């Protein structure tokens, strides 16, 4: 089964965007916000939401170590 990146602890997110930049670099070889498969956005409660594009999550396992506050985990796709 394929290993995929998934969100483990969204409320820990500090909004640094390192995962956004690293995943854009991984997919396209360039740094970008717009072309990134990960989107960080601010919730109404003032903290952050993390969305991973399903089409790319199987290519992003290494992003798990990029996050400084351990928001991600690698799981096996069911």
């Amino acid at each position, binding site marked *: 089964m394929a290993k995929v990146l998934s969100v483990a602890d969204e409320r820990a997110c500090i909004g*640094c965007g*390192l995962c*956004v930049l690293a995943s854009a670099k991984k997919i396209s*070889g360039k*740094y970008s916000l717009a072309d990134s498969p990960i989107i960080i956005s601010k919730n109404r*409660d*003032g903290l952050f939401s993390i969305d991973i594009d399903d089409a790319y999550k199987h290519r992003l396992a290494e992003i798990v170590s990029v996050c*400084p*506050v351990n928001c991600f985990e690698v799981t096996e796709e069911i």
Partner: protein
Amino acid sequence: VSQKRVLYIDLSRKKSEIKIHSDLETVLGGVGLGTALYNDLAETSPIILSIGPFAALLPGCSSTCATFRSPLTAGQAESYAGGWLAACMRFSHLDAIVINGRSPAPVYLVITDGDVKFKDASPIVGRNVFESFRYLSETEGFVGKRSIVTIGKGGENRVAYASVNVDNYHEFSRLGLGSVFGRAGLKGFVISATESIEVKNDALFSSLRQEIITTLREGTSKNIFPGFNKFGNVAGIKFQNDIGGMPVRNLSSNRFGEIGNISEESWFSAHKPHGIASVGNPVPEKFIFDLQDMKIPLGYDSIVSLGPLIGLSNRDSIISLRALALDYGLDPVSLGFVLSYIHELEGLTFSEDFSLRKLVTELVDQSEKWSKQLSGGVQASSVKMGGVDFALALNGLEMAPYFNGYATIVGQLAGLSQNLEDTEGHRLDIGLLGRDFDNFSLAGALIQREKLILLLNSLSVDYFARGLYADISLVFSLLQSLGYSWSKEELERFTEELYYLKLGAKKRSGFSQDRWQVPEKIFKTPSAYGLLKENRLNEILNVYKSEYWT
């Protein structure tokens, strides 16, 4: 890569255009680019936002520089903000945004791909920062790839110490940019990022970038701002009090008796704040604290200015006052000094939230003569209302909430931006505690530090990461990896020329090196160094005039 892509926006004519400046190849970016552009346009008093080559690509490099004419000092000023603004400019391939003119009716801007839409701001006119942010966020979209910049009623009503909010938790705080936005009829803007960046020498760049990320995350380097990894910008409260460098009750004292209530340890253990990082920073540089359903950022400056400076030790009262300043869009430091000035002028005691909230609201609404007078900051107000001796501003700008010694004061008077963080005089003073020094060494050290900070501010380096990027060999390698063919000598020459370009601009704006505006109270309360003497201060300032500014 050295060419500069600049977006010019004319609010009067509602026009915009992008210009490619090959004539600005030698100004790096950030404050260097802002100063060069401002110099050419000074007569029109533009607002210039600029970033440097490291912005958003390297950790600890999230600062956008704003260059403008300060309503407090009447001279060229700079202010810096984090958040995602620098990233959105970087990923729009914009090195700078120059805003000129005045809109006849308030507008906000939507900037996408260098294209600018001028939108009617009437739905958010009279609304404060939180509501304006929510409106712009819900109306304009671009979720996850945008930055939202807005003013509150403080800026709209032209309070001279109004701030500009960036992405809710960040601000162009000092020197009154919010008032300049208000004067221009600019309520704010939304900028979205649509472009990608390919790094020239990716292998070298990625390896250096990873080293910097690791160093910041581990927090073990002596070059990282002390206490930063644990407390972010809240660090230093207890230390400042211990050394006797904390301005308390309008500088009636240099130590706060109730420090136990407001030390960083007490804030963190009682409130468990959440960390916030600007784009690309692997450690939180700010912390947000709960207030009902809101999250409020607090740091050393806001805690001390809205706490000990006005005699408050109740943490909930300080959070509440900070929330009000954030929402109105007011610099919490200047606001603290305005409140502490009123405190002394009127013999008031601030203890209840209600009276303070009412007072701050009146300072923004300006329905009374006294509140109109106070909208210009403490120095201008004191000329009309009295209390010049204890109106704690230096050359027009309310002082920073540090009182460590001569370098702290000289750094604000003779520093070209007047912002203490741009000379770090307060840190220099810490090294001088209990020691004698000569005036030439002190002035020389301050100028040397200011020049280094000018270089780092031209690269978009954040204050807490200055120690890491002060390694010029690292800067040189990073620039090379990004495709900049600068030599080390060129970097040094650029910094030297920038210092004197800024000095020239300061002199042209009416700054006089023969007339320093220092309130007498500075010489009546001991600093961390001891009681400061006016003659000694003047002797140090004269070194600037005789040795460096001729």
